[in-house]
């Protein structure tokens, strides 16, 4: 067994971690739904990501293996790439309309 996981699974810390992950997820979703600024909305999606990643680590700890941490590394990598892409998009959208509000983009409705 991995020495890092040799410590007996302390369920209390897992519980706290899961609570924190749910909080991060909820804050992310609430922020995404209520804000119109595209950068803020993007930041909120990052919060949602981190909430999920934290839950992965917590569950990995619960199961006594490294899968959750491996997932997290992947999530961070993908999120970094996505952040570069998304910020570039936001900059382009801003140049088009001179505003960061998401409300001005609704061409695809119906």
């Amino acid at each position, binding site marked *: 067994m991995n020495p890092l996981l040799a410590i007996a699974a302390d369920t209390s810390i897992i519980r706290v971690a899961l609570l924190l992950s749910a909080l991060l997820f909820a804050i992310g*979703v609430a922020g995404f*739904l209520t804000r119109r600024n595209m950068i803020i909305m993007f930041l909120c999606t990052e919060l949602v990501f981190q909430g999920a990643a934290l839950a992965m680590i917590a569950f990995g700890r619960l199961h006594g293996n490294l899968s959750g941490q491996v997932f997290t590394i992947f999530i961070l990598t993908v999120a970094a790439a996505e952040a570069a892409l998304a910020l570039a998009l936001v900059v382009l959208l801003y140049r088009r309309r001179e505003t960061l509000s*998401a*409300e001005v983009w*609704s061409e695809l*409705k119906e």
Partner: protein
Amino acid sequence: MTPMLALVSSDVTTAVVDGAAFSWLGWTLALPAISAVLCTLCALLKVPGKLPAMLTVASLGASFALVLQFYQQMPATPITIHLAEWMSFSWGPTDFHALQAPLALYIDRLTVFWMLFVTGLGTLIALYASEYMEADVKSGYARFFAGVSIFLFSMTALVMGGNLLLLYLGWEGVGLASYLLIGYYYTRPAAVAAAKKAFIVNRIGDLGLALGLFLTWRCYGTIEFSELFSRIASAPSNAPWDEALIPYLFMLGAFGKSAQIPLYVWLPDAMEGPTPVSALIHAATMVTAGVYLIARMYPIFLVQPDALVVVAWVGGSTALLAATIGMAQFDLKRVWAYSTISQLGYMFLGLGVGTTFGACYHTFTHAFFKALLFLTAGAVMHGFAGQLDLRHLSGLRRVPGFRLVSWLALLGCLWLAAIPFSAAYFSKDTILATALGSDRADFRFLGWMGLFTAGLTAYYTFRIWFRVFAGPVHFVPGNDSHDADHAHAKFHPHGPRWAIRLPLILIAIGAVLSGLPGYIETFAHKENWAQWMIAGSSAVEGAGLSHGGHAEHADHGHLVLGMDAHKAASLLSGILGAIGIGIAFWIHLARRSAADSIRRTIEHTPLIGWIPRAAERKWYVDEVYHAAFRMPLWMTAHVLHFIDKHIVDAGVVDGIGRAPASLGRVFRPLYGGALQSYAVTMAGGIGLILVWLVWNWVRGVH
């Protein structure tokens, strides 16, 4: 009477020789095809002048010359000439696993007999048409001659083809040519309707021929004549029911093409086509294809003698019915059309009662005199601006330019009425004598019916001649004025020039000469040439005056009124013909008012008063067909159209098409374009799933 030639050994159909030395005969087939292509090119390139007519006459004349050349050196046995591979399939070891239909010719004397008058008359009538159609030089001239060439090519394939498939190709080809040429004046609704009618009615018959072809292959494993006849003779079929059906199916095809009951209705309407077409296709050649088919396939019919009884009855009834209608028509060409149907009826009667010789000989003589009659009618129509109503034409004999036409028409009429020692007298009387001398009572009855019809024929024929060509000069021009300048000026009938006169004279000579075999038989007691021709072919079994399948001389047959059947037929048909001509002379020339008063008298007599009107309206056969077949089909078509349009199209197809759109309309409000509303939908969905999970967890369901 010469003694009937001893029945030629029946191996005349089995000993088939390969005729590779005669492969030049393939040009008979190729020349009209080339001419058709060239005429089509002329039509496309709008070549002015009479070039298409020259091409057609030259190629048909060359075909005729080739046939004559072959006739000179004709071998005694049938020959097959393999020209090219065409259709050849094989998928197993036996004959029943292969279909062989090469582009080959099967030439026996029957073929040559037919080709002689088909190409000969084709050439002469094309020459006639070169002048007759000259008003159309700028419009449809090339199209017309392309049609004639297609017809001759198809007819050649039909008659000379070495297998049933080639025969079928020709059969369909002549139907196509007939359709194209009947509808030649395509701006006239009547012509278009007539063309459609001819095509569709023929299609019913063609179905019979096609099915017969299929069954022939199924029963005998071959459709090549060179193999087929020996197999029919030698081996019993492996499918007796199918075999029994074949002659009836072929018969249906023959009745369609040769205008017999119940499929004769297209031929009178086909007179909407130009007159040379009526003469060539609808009188002399194409309509005899049915007679040819039965004569060619006679071995199959002999296996099923009941089928021949049907042929005899249909032929006899058609002869009588068409003659009664012909008596009451006022249109010159229609009378000749009904007389064609009636004469074709005689030919089928001949085939049915077992004299293929009589039937084929009558076809031969009829081809000449009926072409002559149509062409004289055409000359009248050409000269009198399309007038064909015999109530508006009289005394043409005395109109300048029409004397020759009148006398040639008289010749044609005498031949049609079969006066003694005309060509038809020999051919028709062979048929009637065979019927009268038959052992079968019903054939004898048909013989008497044929004799009665001969009387009617003489009457309606001379009704035309005495009305139109004799009597005081009086005429009303028709509506087709060639020159607009003269439309309002006084009408001058113009007589035909040489290109019409020459074919008329040559065909008249042909009509006289077609009786030659009969004269020679009667007076020189030599073998009848026509009989010799038929006897050396697949129709051999019926070439003699046979009774119930075995050849026997008429002298030994049934006695009619105490006389030999042949003598009785000649005598009686002569007497009845004379009576018919006499009545026609009396009421249509000597006292023309008598015709009207007789008609009035009949019309006011109870019980028979309806007869003249009903005969004039063709016994309402077209109306009955309309009510019995066309109306139900028309109504079914409309019901099905309604179902298709309002249930299948509007309901099922459009319904399926509309379903996604209506589903989309339900969910459309969810997508208003605001980014957050989409997010709310997603979050709401996740929320609902969460609620569901929690609900299950609370209820203890995991």
